[in-house]
């Protein structure tokens, strides 16, 4: 299949998901559209040849992180939010978001920098981001960052358990 077709398909899935995260008033609907957006981005990773990252994206983001979100929404029993209408805060935030998007997109769209118009083709064909290559680099060249990440995840796990724990009666007094 043509790469452009894949790009347009997965890109529009990601964009539609993102738009709906912004506009859905029920948190569960927003979370489900966020899953759609993550899956679209996973498809883009596949299109770009990063198959390992696409698998990780589906497992960690669309799987683990979204389960965490949905679990918390259900635990807190959150319901659909009332429609606030257009107020000053919303207007200002729309302006901020539009400015952020515009200031990045406009220079990119109008540039004639040749590097940006080259097809994004891997220069080193052998070094694709397949699971084998990622594994070889991750456990040789990038072993220190890998270990730091594992330490970070351990710290985050201890922190999350501590924060979410219900205080014992003795601690409350």
């Amino acid at each position, binding site marked *: 299949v043509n790469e452009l077709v894949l790009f347009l398909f997965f890109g529009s899935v990601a964009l539609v998901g993102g738009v709906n995260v912004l506009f859905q008033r029920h948190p569960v609907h927003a979370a489900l559209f966020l899953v759609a957006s993550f899956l679209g981005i996973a498809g883009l990773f596949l299109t770009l040849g990063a198959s390992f*990252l696409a698998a990780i994206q589906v497992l960690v983001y669309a799987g683990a992180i979204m389960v965490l979100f949905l679990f918390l929404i259900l635990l807190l029993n959150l319901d659909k939010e009332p429609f606030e209408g257009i107020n000053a805060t919303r207007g200002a935030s729309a302006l901020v978001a539009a400015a952020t998007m515009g200031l990045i997109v406009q220079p990119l769209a109008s540039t004639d920098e040749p590097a940006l118009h080259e097809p994004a083709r891997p220069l080193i064909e052998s070094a694709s981001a397949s699971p084998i290559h990622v594994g070889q680099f991750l456990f040789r060249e990038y072993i220190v960052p890998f270990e730091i990440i594992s330490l970070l*995840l351990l710290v985050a796990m201890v922190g999350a358990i501590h924060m979410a724990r219900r205080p014992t009666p003795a601690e409350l007094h």
Partner: protein
Amino acid sequence: MVDLNYYLILSAMLFGLGVATFVSRRNSIVMFMGVELMLNAANLTLVACARMHRPVDGSILSLMVIAVAAAEVAVGLAILLAVFRLRRTVNADEIRELRA
């Protein structure tokens, strides 16, 4: 083959949507979703740009970003749970105990 520019513009639009979600929604959980959208947009940029040089680097850096995002979500949602126990709300406008 698709221009690198298309990927960058798409990820800029996703980043803008994440910013809009973060600043306009008042539900803290949905605000977190905006942060996740922004991180994903950054990952897309990393992978698209790395494809011109050494694709493995982009994948590994994105892997680090995903791990940090997972840690951030775990701690952040635990904090929200603790806040909800105290205040019975996750509305960012109503959580203002630290404000003078």
